[in-house]
């Protein structure tokens, strides 16, 4: 096995039980690898298996067959604790709905990710503020999530995901709830972080606006890889 790959999927199949002993196969024999600093996306119609694949890579779920290696760890073999640890340290999630904890301030939401890593207070505060600066929201630090806009909320979610400097960022339709202007702003921020921190990004999206930023586009259909295309080679090299 080539351990250079940050993510390596071999014959990954995911079946969901649908009652009566029958199964629905959401992913069929997926073979993909992702490397450090990639900026890739999964596209495809609804139900094609994008979220299922992201959840497996994020160790929130495991494959029924095949092998999913993430940062050298076999997802299927991780205990609850180990998979939580993997997410905690190495994986950042961004969701369609910018899920912030409503009782905590913007700053505390970002800080929370580091709290889970038992990082000391002064270092935590410094890193959280820095992450907010990356997304340009240092001025909103003390606001509660219900007092900021949707675009700002998604930027806070990005700051929270990136503050721990994960190796992998998984973004499931991050722009679906945003207008064009905010969507572009978010994508520019993410692309910038990708360059600056060498983080591997993996999106799931329907959104043309997202696709135009991707360096690699993987089309899924009925749980299978239909196309795997390096799109923005020039962009990536620049």
């Amino acid at each position, binding site marked *: 096995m080539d351990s250079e790959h940050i993510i390596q999927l071999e014959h990954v199949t995911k079946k969901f039980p649908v009652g009566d002993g029958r199964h629905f196969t959401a992913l069929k024999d997926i073979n993909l690898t992702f490397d450090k600093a990639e900026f890739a996306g999964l596209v495809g119609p609804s139900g094609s298996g994008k979220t299922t694949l992201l959840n497996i890579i994020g160790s929130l779920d495991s494959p029924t067959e095949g092998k999913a290696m993430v940062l050298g760890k076999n997802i299927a073999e991780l205990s609850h604790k180990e998979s939580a640890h993997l997410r905690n*340290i190495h994986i950042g999630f961004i969701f369609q709905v910018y*899920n912030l*904890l409503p009782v905590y301030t913007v700053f505390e939401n970002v800080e929370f990710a580091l*709290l889970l890593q038992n990082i000391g207070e002064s270092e935590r505060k410094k890193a959280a503020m820095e992450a907010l600066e990356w997304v340009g929201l240092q001025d909103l630090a003390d606001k509660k999530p219900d007092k900021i806009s949707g675009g700002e909320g998604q930027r806070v979610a990005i700051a929270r995901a990136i503050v721990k400097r994960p190796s992998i960022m998984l973004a499931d339709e991050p722009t679906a709830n945003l207008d064009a202007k905010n969507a572009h702003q978010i994508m520019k921020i993410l692309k910038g972080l990708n360059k600056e921190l060498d983080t591997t990004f993996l999106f799931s999206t329907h959104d043309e606006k997202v696709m135009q930023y991707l360096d690699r586009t993987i089309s899924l259909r009925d749980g299978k890889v239909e196309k795997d295309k390096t799109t923005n080679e020039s962009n990536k090299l620049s």
Partner: protein
Amino acid sequence: MIRFLLKGILRDKSRSLLPIIVVSLGVALTVFYSGFLEGVMGDIIRQNARFETGHVKVITKAYGKNKDQLPIDLALLDVNSLVQSLENQFSDMDWVKRIRFGGLIDVPDENGETKGQRPATGLALELFSEQSKEAERLDIQNALVSGSIPDESGEALVSYEFADKMDVQIGDEITYFGSTMYGSMALTNFTVSGTIRFGIAAMDQGALIVDISDAQKMLDMQDGSTEILGFLSSGVYDNEVATNVMENFNAKYADSSDEFASVMVRLRDQNNLAGMLDYVDLASGLFIGIFVLAMSVVLWNTGLIAGLRRYKEFGIRLALGEAKGEIYRSMIYEAVLIGVIGSVFGTAIGLGLTYYMQTVGLDIGQFLDNAGVMMPITMRAKITPSLFYIGFIPGLLAMVFGNMLAGFGIYKRETATLFKELEV
């Protein structure tokens, strides 16, 4: 982390307010109930000890069998030497002689004709002796409505109620009619030196209190008394110590078939106090148990509802890298925090109520008109050290238990299923 959780609890009122109110209420009730029970039962036991049972009591076997009739013919004799030997054997205890007797009290008018007559229960105490603590023990000084404690032979205290009904004034003569220890007629005049009200139904109806030397003379009971009471040096009834003393004493007379042999009984075995003593322990245990259960059910439900509302939060935290076990554990921490906050409030409220009932009390005099029981007329709660922590038991248990049940659904499910259900 705890600080973070605490922040969350305090900011999200809808998450914390209801459980805190439920816990506070339950804890307040528990504290108050315990305080009330301790106060009332403690008073009853203390009063019984002071007025009737002592912590232990020596009588004759025969007297014990017929004690309701106040059978002075079955009294102890040679009591001075008996007291002496008790004092030698149990030197840290206080031993006192008392005589209980029944009879009639006749109140004459200025011509010496009978103005009225009433049955009375008499109590003879060591009032004159210098080292006797009896007046203090019965708190006679405070119970005096008028006049003073007898300090010479021929003086008596009568209950205020009696004096009021019979129109007896301080300094008036009254006559006691009864029989002596040997069955002949006893007739003695006393001068009323004071009137008393103890606030105890059994003592306040028709009581005559005289010094023991006067009673011995009047009842022809040379060196005799109906009972010898022993009081532990701590002043508080301790069943273990009392049992020990009793067993030691009784061992000497174990195989005596003599009817008039002396026997010791402890407080627990008199006036049905065993039931009461056991009831105190049982009732508080039961009460706390019931509260833990009832509150757990309520808190389980509030926990479930709060949990549903927080599914999104749990999903975020799963994604951020908390294992579901950790999330479950943090829910329990939160429950402990809320339990502590609620218990602190509840204990404060409970102590407030208890303090009120300790100072003001509840007058139950009208229900005790004919009661022969040794019951205080005013029921009072009592603040004891245990009240400061006892409420934390149901408060914490119920909160933690309720939330463990509520969170169990989360704990049991697969992370992936959970995550999907959370609809992140």
